[in-house]
């Protein structure tokens, strides 16, 4: 056989071998790709299956929310008016007035008024409904201020906390008199306030005498021991003051409370002027007006 023929045969064999090697490699890779795409298709199928109801559900949610927005927009415009409604929304969300209300296209042309934190119309409306407007420290979600049982406390809570809710934590007003639980010796309290250190420092050393009393007890002041005081019974507590501790009236006849029930401001008012006397100018304001007298007389006549 000629050498050329041998070379040809070898070349063809090499070509076939190369084709086999590479094509087998390609086939193997394509099988891997096919396996991978099968997995992809499986997962995509799951995605399609899981997302199938999403569109309907989201659409339903959007419809519900649209209905809610329409409701609130309509209520706001109905109650506050278009201009005030735009101003209120603009006050809450700056720039929203330009977008306007979705259900009211004409709202985009409304010039939003400047409504600050206090909306007078709303304040009055809330006050009319018995709830304080949210302009003070009161919580609009709190109890109604005009509640007959707790209205006083709720109203007081609008003001700075001093003693409206915790009166027990503050000192009570002092009880004065001989039965007072705290007794102040005359040398310590002689009218006015007893100067403390700050007041003494402010007013000067002369005010210290008030702290010690006009006459100190050591010098025979009114709260000195009895042996230092003169034999003057008027310095007993009966003179210095004591309650009677009795319900007996101070007068012999006492006070008849029924007289007040029968009083007539028209007929009983003013001083008793003598009949026929020339009225003095100083009694002009206190005297009964003639029209009132005539009115009272005519009423009595009609009653009888």
């Amino acid at each position, binding site marked *: 056989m000629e050498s050329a023929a041998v*070379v040809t045969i070898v070349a063809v064999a090499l070509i076939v071998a190369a084709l086999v090697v590479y094509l087998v490699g390609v086939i193997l*890779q394509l099988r891997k790709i096919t396996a991978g795409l099968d997995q992809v298709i499986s*997962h995509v199928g799951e995605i399609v299956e899981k997302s199938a109801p999403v569109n309907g559900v989201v659409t339903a949610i959007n419809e519900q929310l649209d209905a809610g927005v329409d409701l609130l927009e309509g209520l706001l415009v109905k109650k506050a008016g278009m201009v005030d409604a735009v101003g209120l929304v603009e006050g809450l969300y700056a720039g929203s007035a330009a977008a306007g209300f979705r259900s009211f296209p004409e709202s985009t042309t409304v010039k939003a008024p400047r409504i600050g934190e206090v909306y007078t119309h709303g304040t009055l409306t809330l006050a009319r409904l018995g709830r304080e407007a949210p302009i003070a420290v009161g919580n609009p979600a709190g109890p109604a201020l005009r509640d007959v049982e707790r209205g006083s406390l709720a109203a007081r809570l609008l003001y700075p906390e001093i003693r409206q809710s915790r009166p027990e934590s503050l000192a009570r007003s002092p009880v004065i008199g001989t039965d007072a639980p705290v007794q102040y010796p005359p040398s310590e309290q002689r009218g006015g306030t007893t100067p403390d250190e700050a007041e003494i420092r402010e007013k000067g050393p002369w005010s210290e005498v008030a702290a010690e009393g006009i006459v100190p007890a050591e010098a025979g002041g009114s709260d000195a021991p009895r042996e230092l005081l003169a034999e003057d019974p008027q310095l007993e507590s009966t003179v210095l003051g004591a309650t009677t501790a009795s319900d007996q009236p101070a007068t012999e006849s006492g006070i008849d409370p029924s007289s007040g029930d029968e009083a007539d401001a028209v007929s009983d008012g003013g001083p008793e002027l003598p009949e026929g006397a020339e009225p003095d100018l100083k009694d002009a304001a206190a005297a009964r007006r003639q029209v009132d007298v005539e009115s009272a007389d005519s009423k009595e006549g009609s009653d009888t």
Partner: protein
Amino acid sequence: MTLWWIGNIALFAVFLVVVYLLHGVLSAARSIVPSAEAIAKTAAAGSKDLDAAALLLTTQDQVTKTVAGVANYGGSLDVILDDAE
């Protein structure tokens, strides 16, 4: 005889071309495999993420109840508040 050798040379050239082209095809096939695997993993993750889609039914129910409550409040306000003049 000369033609035989010329044919052999041409055949060798064809061999080189065939080897080059097949190598390119094999390389392309190999490069697709990682991409297909990455797509499969991503699809699996996406499918897992959509497991929460079922909760949308609960959300829908809550939204429905909320809007119904808003409607009730709005109706009450409509009654107790005066309309704008």
